[in-house]
């Protein structure tokens, strides 16, 4: 049973868990797709995404975040999880609990194959992913958040903690580097 099922019913917005349930329902897919495009690895994106939401949930219990402010907050946690992954060679999510129900295994595989067809094997994605991989992490983050996630510079500033001018500079330098690499 997932959190979305867990908090459906009569207590949707009356409880803290119910309010987090709405955030989870609204943004799980978005954060997952962001991590998938960033990492290019389905299983890793799934683990990182689950750990992102679990950390967000634990933090939400201590200090509630308004729905309107929750998306940049989730991106921030997701980027932090990704950074942790980069630090350790083998990512071991510490908080994630996984339960795969045998009858659902087919649906799980189907979704993985679907992601493979829709994103990971897409020629445009693969080309851009290899170009992005050669950028500095901060440049890559700024570019992905701006173009792929369609966030405003102010939102990116909230997520990364960088000034708007610095973000513009990272985006510009990153794009130039991508152009140079693709032309060479």
């Amino acid at each position, binding site marked *: 049973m*997932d959190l979305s099922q*867990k908090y459906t019913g009569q207590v949707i917005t009356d409880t803290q868990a119910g309010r987090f349930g709405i955030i989870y329902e609204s943004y799980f897919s978005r954060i997952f797709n962001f991590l998938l*495009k960033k990492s290019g690895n389905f299983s890793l994106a799934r683990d990182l995404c689950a750990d992102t939401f679990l950390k967000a949930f634990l933090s939400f219990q201590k200090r509630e975040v308004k729905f309107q402010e929750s998306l940049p907050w989730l991106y921030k946690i997701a980027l932090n999880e990704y950074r942790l992954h980069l630090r350790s060679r083998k990512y071991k999510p510490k908080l994630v609990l996984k339960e795969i129900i045998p009858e659902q295994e087919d649906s799980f595989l189907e979704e993985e194959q679907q992601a493979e067809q*829709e994103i990971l094997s897409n020629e445009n994605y693969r080309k851009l992913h290899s170009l992005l991989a050669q950028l500095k992490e901060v440049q890559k983050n700024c570019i992905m958040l701006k173009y792929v996630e369609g966030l405003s510079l102010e939102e990116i500033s909230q997520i990364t903690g960088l000034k708007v001018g610095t973000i513009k500079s990272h985006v510009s330098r990153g794009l130039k580097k991508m*152009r140079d690499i693709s032309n060479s």
Partner: protein
Amino acid sequence: MKNDIKEIENQLTQLSHMNTSITHHKEIIKEPILLAKRANPVALGLLAFPMLFMIGIILKHEIHAEVPWITGFSEWLVNIDPHSSGNFVSSNISQLLLGLPLIAIILVLFSILRSAKVNENREFELSFKLNIWGGVIIILSFLIFLAYMVFLFSR
């Protein structure tokens, strides 16, 4: 040159329209009652004294070895209890010390227990998530109890 950058920008923007469905991959989240990373060190701390005590007793009574700071500690604990008359089995302090592993086990149980409320079915799910340290603490606690029981019945 500028067109190249525009093209890259367009290609990146196109990525925003590519999304995959992951409804089946939403993780099952169950809340732990206590976080293992907090409960395990406390439980290990609680086990330290009874372990030292039992090791001292085993060294002295079974192996007949004297390791001053271990056997001395056990002896000291038995002797400060006025009701023990030198017998550690009937010592109130040793019984009190053996209550600590029980608390340690309860802490570990709370940290490995996960709960989830199923509103639709009016169910409350409980499950255990085992971790190595939790297992070690439970085994150590039972070993302490076992050693005490062996002494208790052999006397």
